[in-house]
């Protein structure tokens, strides 16, 4: 705290008003300072840390550069899963384009061919995607809302809406 302590905690009645005002001002200054610091932190963090959601086609259209951190959404392409020790490779498709994904780790329980999946990771120079997280919601009608919305927008949605409404 940078506020200077006042000479007495029991100011004389005459000085009371001005002390109150000064303290109030100091308090507001402190509040302003903390708020400014918090805002700065939040804005910088938003700038640095948010991750955009993309489908394979969007990655191609936007020409995302390798090294970009993304959330990749789509369906697990049928017949694409290759298990190699603890590393797994699969392709994510939005039925227009595919994106090969490499992931070292255990796949979530409902990871299935033809099902929706969201992986977070980094786009590689060779055009593949190195995922560090693979997400799946624990529901048999599973389709991440993000994926469903995107695929609807692209006119690729084939499931019924009940899938999302369970």
């Amino acid at each position, binding site marked *: *705290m940078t*506020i*200077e*302590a*006042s000479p007495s*905690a029991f100011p004389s009645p005459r000085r*009371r008003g001005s*002390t*109150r005002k000064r*303290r109030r001002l*100091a*308090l507001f200054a*402190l*509040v302003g300072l*903390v*708020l400014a*610091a*918090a805002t700065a*932190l*939040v804005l*910088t*963090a*938003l700038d*640095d*840390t*948010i*991750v*955009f*959601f993309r489908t394979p086609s969007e990655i191609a259209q936007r020409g995302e550069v390798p090294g970009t951190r993304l*959330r990749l959404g789509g369906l697990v392409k049928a017949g694409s899963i290759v*298990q190699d*020790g*603890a590393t797994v490779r699969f392709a994510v498709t939005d039925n227009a384009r595919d994106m090969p994904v490499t992931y*070292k*780790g*255990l*796949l979530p*329980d*409902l*990871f299935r061919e033809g099902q929706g999946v969201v992986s*977070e990771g980094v786009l590689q120079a060779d055009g593949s995607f190195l995922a560090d997280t693979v997400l799946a*919601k*624990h*529901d*048999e009608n599973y389709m*991440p*809302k*993000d994926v469903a*919305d*995107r695929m609807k927008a692209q006119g690729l949605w084939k499931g019924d809406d009940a899938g*999302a*409404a*369970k």
Partner: protein
Amino acid sequence: MIAETGHYALVLALALALLQSVLPIWGARTRDAALMGLAGPLAYGQLAFVALSFAALTHAYVTSDFSVVNVVENSHSAKPLIYKISGVWGNHEGSLLLWVLILTLFSALVAFFGKNLPDRLRADVLGVQAMISVAFLLFVLLTSNPFARLDPAPMEGQDLNPLLQDPGLAIHPPLLYVGYVGFSMAFSFAVAALIEGKVDAAWARWVRPWTLGAWLFLTLGIAMGSYWAYYELGWGGFWFWDPVENASLMPWLSGTALLHSAVVMEKREALKVWTVLLALLTFALSLLGTFLVRSGVLTSVHAFAVDPARGVAILIILIVFVGGSLALYALRAPTLKQGGMFAPVSREGALVLNNLFLTAATAAVFVGTLYPLALEAMTGEKISVGPPFFNNTFGPLMLPVMLVMPFAPLLAWKRGDAARAARAMVYAVGVAVVATALVAGFARGGPTLAPLGVGLALFAITGAFAELVERSKLFRAPFAESVRRLRGAPSSTWGSALAHAGMGVTLLGVVAATAWPSEAVVALKPGQSVSISGYDLTFEGVSQRPGPNYASTIAALTVRKDGAVVRRLEPSRRLYAARQMDLTEASIATFGLSQLYASMGEARGDDATALRVTYKPLVTLIWFGAVIMALGGGLSLADRRLRVGAPRRAAKPVPVSAHPAPAE
């Protein structure tokens, strides 16, 4: 028949709630004692009917009454009894019913324990509580009736989501809801005070125990949820900054701020306007949490139901209560009188800092949680705000809180002696510096800041007891004298010391478990081994075992340390028959405060099995810390000066106890 009884009981409860939301407040305005007196009986009646309704739904679950849609969708006759019971709140409709049950329980408790509250305040508080009841009862009855029938009734139910078939479900939601809904008390008291236009120390003395109780349960509920996610989701993470987790963290943060500002208000009649606002905001954040979880705007394990009508209904409730109370606040707050003054270096000053940073941290979490929703609604762009955001904002904002925390109890009200407080903290600083140096010297790997995190945690833990050390004159007076003084210290002093230490303990667990975990993801054939943090795990093979409503595939691992068998781990995968759903069950071995965590991947044809093994040092401290915090809350609650309705102790020291009346 019983289901219909439950339904009608809810309708009757709604009728009583409507009366209770109007008559007592009207009575308070017209000074009609009879009308005000109705509040109590109406609150008891409401509780009775909602409890009856809840019992009816529980009955339907226990007897597997598949003519009730809710039971069909969430239960199965083969489900173990405990999950039949906890399944009652393992779904949207039932969990709302639990919400309402706890709300009416709190109303009844105020009616019961609040006999010596001023009549008008009591009538107003119960009236406001009833308004919340009305809103949620209407919501349940109109959009989420748990008693809807199905004709013809199917022979078998669809079973409960296997993830929820866990003792965690039996405990986590009720604890969390007692916390969320408990904050409605602070809200009702705040609104009542605004209606009356009078807020004083007595008001704060009433609000504090209720807030403390709610806070205590919310703390336990969040910790329980975190531990449940840790062992059940199979990744070994304890906090994901998932919007639903944030939804419970936000009211916890602002509730913590409220607890502290209420102390200032009670002792010094200062920060009145702020405390009232915080009381309103804390419950608003609880409602927001309910909205986020129940409306389905989020994709999450918790989002049972995605029904736009329900989302809109909760949004309306949210807007009415938050908007209404804030409008009332804007209207009445300027009339509240200013309280006592204080020097910047004082107990009040420290608590103001605590409030500032806790509120700022709440705001940061709020932005991170809602920004993706807002952005998507406005631009259609989908983003994800993940742990890095929260680590970069929440962390720095909580740092001052942790630093100031041990100092506050050492400072006197009005004007504190910074030098004296600093002297009392010398040993804590010493411990922190030594710990930081030791950890920095010996730890391998991990972020560079991690040793400082350990130092900060130990500073908070040891510093938390500085006031007790001072008070007892430990090492300065004869030992027996110190013990007597420690025993004589009020339980609220012990309570705050424990709660503050608990924060440090949790921080220590978080730092250690995130900075120095070891992980191995391997595919093993029977007989092969993997080593992690000095433990050798040998994969013995896979076996099958049937469960009550699932079939398990179990991977057996023998854990050896220095060649000797110390433990056996059995991660498994369960296939739940009714839903044809797979579930990973992690297996955990606790060594001291650290844990070895194994989960099993899907079998992939060849006889190798994918396994993920993690060693998390000191990870259990994360939850122990929360339990210690809650224990501290409980101790404070037990303090007779805080006890509801307890007569005020005489201001001068009671002759029997030698120590002077404590400041806090």
